[in-house]
C-alpha cells in the first residue's frame, strides 16, 4: 500500500527543546471564556483511538525508541541523593543497550533520553554528569509540587536553577487561580515565571488532577500558552490522577487552537501514569492524529516518567530475540 500523502520525513532532533520558543500574546479573556470541552465526547475519542491505530512490528520498535528520546527521565523523591541522580544520568546517556540498537538497525543513531528531570538541589550534579551529551537538565520549580510558596521565592528558585545550569524549568501553577477563574492572576504568574527563566525553556505544570474538569484544563492551557509557556504539562506525578488520554486530548487541542491563532508551536508533556510501552504508543498516535508529525519529537513532546523506560527496554529485547525479557537484563536507571 502506498504511503498516505500526509507522510513527511522529519530529521530526528537532538535531545532538548530546539523548536522556536513561544513568545506569548496578551491575555484574551473572551477567548478563554469561550472554550468548550465536552467530556463524554472526549472520553469517546480517547477510548476509540487505540482501536483505530494499531502499531506493530518494525513501526512499533521505531516508535518505542522514539519514545525513549522523548522521555524526561525523572527522579523526584524525598530520598533523592547526588549518587542516585548520577546513576539516573548514566542511564539517560545510554538508555537502551547498544546490542539491541544494533539489532534494530539503529546502531548509528545517538539515542538518549530527552532530558533528565530533578529537584533544584541536584541540578548542578546532573549538569555535571551529563556534560558533553547535549542532554538538558530540567528542574522542577516554584514550590513543586503544591506551588504554594511565596511568589518571590518561586522566582528566586527558578533563577537559582537557571544559574546552576538547568536549561528547562518545569513550573507548577497556582491551582487556586484556575479553580476560582482568576485568569488574570494565572497569566501574570506565568508571565513572571517565563521572564525569570530567561533562556531556559519553561514547561507549565497544570496539575490537571487538581483542576478536575476538562474545561478548566483547556482554559488553563490556553492562559499558560498566552503567557509564554514553551510546553504545557499535565501533572507533578503527585496528584491523585495524573496524565490521562482525555486530559491529553484536551490539552493538545488547546495547543492546536493556540497554533492556529498565533502560529506558535507549543510542546506537550504528559507526566505520571505512563509506565507501559503500550500506553506510550497510544499517546504517540494521539499526538500524530491531533497535532501531526512535528509533535513526535522531543522538541515538542516529552514524557515525564521513571519506570516507562524499563518496560520499553524489555519490549525491544523481546522484539529482537523473540523471548520475553526481564528487568535485570537491562542496566538499572
Amino acid at each position, binding site marked *: 500500500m502506498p504511503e498516505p500523502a500526509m507522510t513527511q*520525513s522529519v530529521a530526528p532532533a537532538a535531545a532538548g527543546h530546539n523548536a522556536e520558543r513561544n513568545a506569548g500574546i496578551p491575555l484574551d479573556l473572551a477567548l478563554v471564556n469561550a472554550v468548550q470541552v465536552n467530556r463524554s*465526547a*472526549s472520553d469517546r475519542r480517547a477510548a*476509540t483511538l487505540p*482501536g*483505530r491505530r*494499531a502499531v506493530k512490528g518494525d513501526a512499533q520498535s521505531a516508535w518505542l525508541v522514539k519514545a525513549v528520546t522523548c522521555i524526561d527521565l525523572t527522579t523526584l523523591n524525598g530520598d533523592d541523593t547526588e549518587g542516585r541522580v548520577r546513576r539516573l544520568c548514566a542511564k539517560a546517556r545510554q538508555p537502551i543497550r547498544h546490542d539491541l540498537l544494533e539489532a534494530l538497525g539503529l546502531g548509528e*543513531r545517538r539515542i538518549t533520553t530527552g532530558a533528565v528531570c530533578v529537584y533544584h538541589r541536584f541540578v548542578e550534579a546532573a549538569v555535571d554528569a551529563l556534560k558533553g551529551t547535549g542532554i538538558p537538565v530540567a528542574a522542577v520549580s516554584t514550590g513543586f509540587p503544591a506551588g504554594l510558596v511565596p511568589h518571590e521565592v518561586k522566582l528566586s528558585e527558578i533563577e537559582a536553577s537557571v544559574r546552576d545550569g538547568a536549561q528547562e524549568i518545569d513550573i507548577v501553577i497556582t491551582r487556586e487561580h484556575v479553580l476560582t477563574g482568576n485568569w488574570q492572576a494565572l497569566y501574570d504568574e506565568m508571565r513572571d515565571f517565563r521572564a525569570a527563566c530567561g533562556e531556559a525553556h519553561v514547561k507549565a505544570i497544570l496539575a490537571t488532577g487538581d483542576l478536575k474538569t476538562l474545561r478548566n484544563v483547556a482554559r488553563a492551557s490556553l492562559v499558560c500558552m498566552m503567557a509564554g509557556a514553551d510546553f504545557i504539562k499535565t501533572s507533578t506525578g503527585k496528584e491523585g490522577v495524573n496524565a490521562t488520554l482525555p486530559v491529553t486530548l484536551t490539552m493538545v*487541542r488547546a495547543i492546536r487552537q493556540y497554533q492556529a491563532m498565533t502560529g506558535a508551536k507549543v510542546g506537550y508533556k504528559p507526566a505520571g501514569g505512563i509506565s507501559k510501552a503500550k500506553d506510550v504508543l497510544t499517546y504517540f498516535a494521539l499526538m500524530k492524529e491531533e497535532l501531526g508529525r512535528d509533535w513526535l519529537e522531543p522538541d515538542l513532546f516529552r514524557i515525564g516518567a521513571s519506570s516507562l523506560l524499563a518496560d520499553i527496554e524489555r519490549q525491544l529485547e523481546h522484539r529482537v530475540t523473540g523471548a520475553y525479557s526481564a528487568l535485570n537484563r537491562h542496566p538499572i536507571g
Partner: protein
Amino acid sequence: MTVATYFDTMDYAPSTEDDSVARKWLADHGGRFGHFIGGRFTDPAKGLETREPASGKVLAEIAQGTDEVVNKAVAAARKAQKGWAGLSGHERAVKLYALARIIQRNARLLAVVEALDNGKPIRETRDIDIPLAARHFYHHAGWAQLKESQFPDHDPVGVIGQIIPWNFPLLMLAWKVAPALALGNTVVLKPAEATPLTALLFAELAEAAGLPAGVLNVVTGDGSTGETIVSHEDVDKIAFTGSTEVGRKIREATAGTGKSLTLELGGKSPFIVFDDADLDAAVEGVVDAIWFNQGEVCCAGSRLLVHEGVAEDFHARLAARMMTLRLGASLDKTIDMGAIIDADQRARIAAMVDRAVADGAELVQAQVAAPKDGTFYPPTLLCNVPATSEAATEEIFGPVAVSMTFRTPGEALQLANHSRYGLAASIWSENVNQSLEIAAGVQAGIVWVNCTNVMDAGVGFGGVKESGFGREGGREGCYDYLKPRAFAKAPERKPAQTAKAKMFAVAAVDRTAKLFIGGKQARPDGNYTRPVVGAGGEILGEVGEGNRKDIRNAVEAARGAASWGSKTQHNRAQILYYLGENLSARAAEFADRLRAMTGVKAEKAKAEVSASVSRLFSYGAWADKFEGAVHMPPMRGLALAVPEPLGVVGVVCPPEMPLLGFVSTVAPLIAVGNRIVAVPSEPYPLAATDFYQVVETSDVPAGVLNIVTGEAAALGKELAKHNDVDGLWAFGTLELAEAVERLSSGNLKRTFTDYGRAWDWSAPACEGEEFLRRATQVKNIWVPYGE
C-alpha cells in the same frame, strides 16, 4: 521499510488481522453454502457469489432461495412455532442466553468473517458490530424470561419473515432475531446477497448452542427470494431493514393480508452544530456520523447543519480532520474506513457527488491513499450544497456529508425537519436548554445529544415519516413482535343491515348536518348530501357527502392546529374530561339518536352513551399518565424514551356502535396530542355529527378534531393517499384495510386496522395502552453527561 525509516518518518505500518480461522471455516464448507432450514444445511446449490469488497475476490458461493426453498423454510418455522412459544419464558431465555454466549466465544471469527464479507474495518466489527449483537441476545434473553409477567395479554405474532441489509449483517440479524425469538416467534431470515456469511455462520453456531430445529431458518438469495418471503401466505409478519423504495413495495405487497409489518428504512439525518458546541468534539462526531462504516449507515448524520457564525471555523477543522483518515483493506487494524460494498454502489455515490458539484456544491475530499483494487471511495464533504440539489435531500449511503448553515435555533429545526425522512438527529451544543428543546422538536426516532451513532439493545431504534415504523430494542421493540390476544379472536364483521328508506321522520325540522372542519361547520365541497336512514326505514336527516377536497381542507385544518401536541398533558386531560361532562349532560338525547339510527333497545343505547362518557374520562385520565421511560444503556448518561404523537391522523370509524366506536378511536389519539380527521360510521353518522356540538362547547381548539361524513371507503382512500397525513386508523371491511395499507405507502403512514374483524368496542381490550401505543411513536433521546 526498516526500523530506522519508521524512526524517521514515524509512519504507521500495516497491521493485519489473521484470517486463517475464517478461511478454514470457508474451506470446511468447500466455499459453498446451502440454506439453513429445519436445523440443518441444505446441499449447496448454484446461486450467487459473495465477494470481498476490499479486493473483489470471491469468498464463497451461496444458494439462490427459490419458491420451493422458501416454502420449506416457512413450513419448518411454522412447525416449530407452537412448541417454541409453548416453552416457558425461562426455557426460551436459556436458549437466548446460550446464543449470546456462543457469539462471544466466537467473537473474533465472526468479526473477521464480517470484515471480509462486508469490507468494513475489523476495528468496527470487533469493537462494535459483534459486541452489540451479543448484547442484543443478552438483553432479549431477559425479555424471554420476563414475557409472561410483562406482556400477559399478548401472544407471539407467529412466523416472522425477516429481510436484512448488507451494512451491518450480523448486527441486523441480532436486532431482528433476538426479539422475535425471545417473545416466542420463529423466523425465516434472508440476509443480503452481498453479505450472507455471518448469518450462515450464526445459524451453525445456533444449532451448536442447542436452538431447536426450525426456530431459526436462514434462506439466502437475491431480491426475488425476499419477494417470495414477503408474499408468502403463511408468514405472519415481515420485518425489513433496507431502502425506503423497497420498504414501500413491501407495504404495498402485504396490504390487507393481515401481516404485521415493521420497516426500518433510509434517512438523511441532520447533524446540528450550534455556536456553543465543542467544535473539535463535533468534528469527531462527524467522523463517527458519516465516516463510520463507509457512511453506509441508515442513521448516518449525513446532513450537517452548522451555525453560520462558526461555519467557517468548523469546516476548516473538519477539512483538516478528513485528511488524517485512513482507508485500507478491512483486516488492516490502522484504518478508519474500508471499501464500499460493491462497484455499483461506489459508482452511485460518485455520480451523486458529481451531480452535486455540477449543481454548485463545493467539494472537499480527503486526498488519502487506498489500495488499487477494491471499491474505495474517499471521505467527502460537500459544502454550500444548494437545497435544491439531490445530494441535499436524498440518501447517498456513502461517506459523503453535505453541509448547510443556519442562523437561529428555529431555523436549524426548520431545516432539520424539512425532509421526508426522520430516522435520527444529532445535536451538538453545550447548552442543555437548547439541546433538549431541539431534541424535543426534531422529527426523528433517535436523537443523540453530543454524540452520534450510539446504539444499545435496551433503547428502541427506528424512524418516523418515510424512515419507516416500528422499533428495535427495548420494551418498545418487544411490542412489534407481539399481538394483543383480544383482537386475534374477533369474528369477521357482517355488513351493516340498514333499513330501506321509506319516508322522512315526522315532527322534526329539516336538519342537514354539515361537515366539521377547522372548528366550524362547513358545507361539503360537492354540495351533495346523503340521507341517513333510521332503523325503521324513516329518514332521520341528511349529512354532507364529503369528497377529496373536503379531506384536503380537513387535513389542512388539522395540520394548522399544531399547538395541540405541545399543550400540556394536564390541559389535554381537562378538555377530554370536559367532553365527557358535556356528553353526559346530553346522554338521553344521544341514546335516543342511537336507538333511532341502529334500532338497539333503550338499555343498550344508554349503555353505549355511558360507556362513551367513561371512555372519554379514561383517556382524560391517561392523558397525563401515558409516560415514557428512562432507559439504562451502558453509558454515563440518560436515554429518554418519549412517546410522541404521530401528528395528523385520519380515522375511519367502525360502522357499528357509532358513538362508542367514534370515541374509542378518536379519544386516544387526541389524548396524546394528535389532530384528527374523522370519518364517522357510514351507516350511522349522526352520532358523530351531533358530537361536534359537544366539541364546540368543550374548549377543543379549532382543527384538533375534524369530521367529514360520507362514503367510508372512498374517504379512507383519500386519507390514505394524502401525503400530509401521518397516520391512518381504519375500521370496516377487509377491502378497506387493504386499500388503506396499500395507498399509505406514499409517505409510509402508520396504519391501524381491524382487517374486517368486528371488535367489541365495549370490551376492556378496546381501551387503553394498546391504543395509546398506536397513537404514538417512541423517540429516544440520548443524553450523555459529565463535565
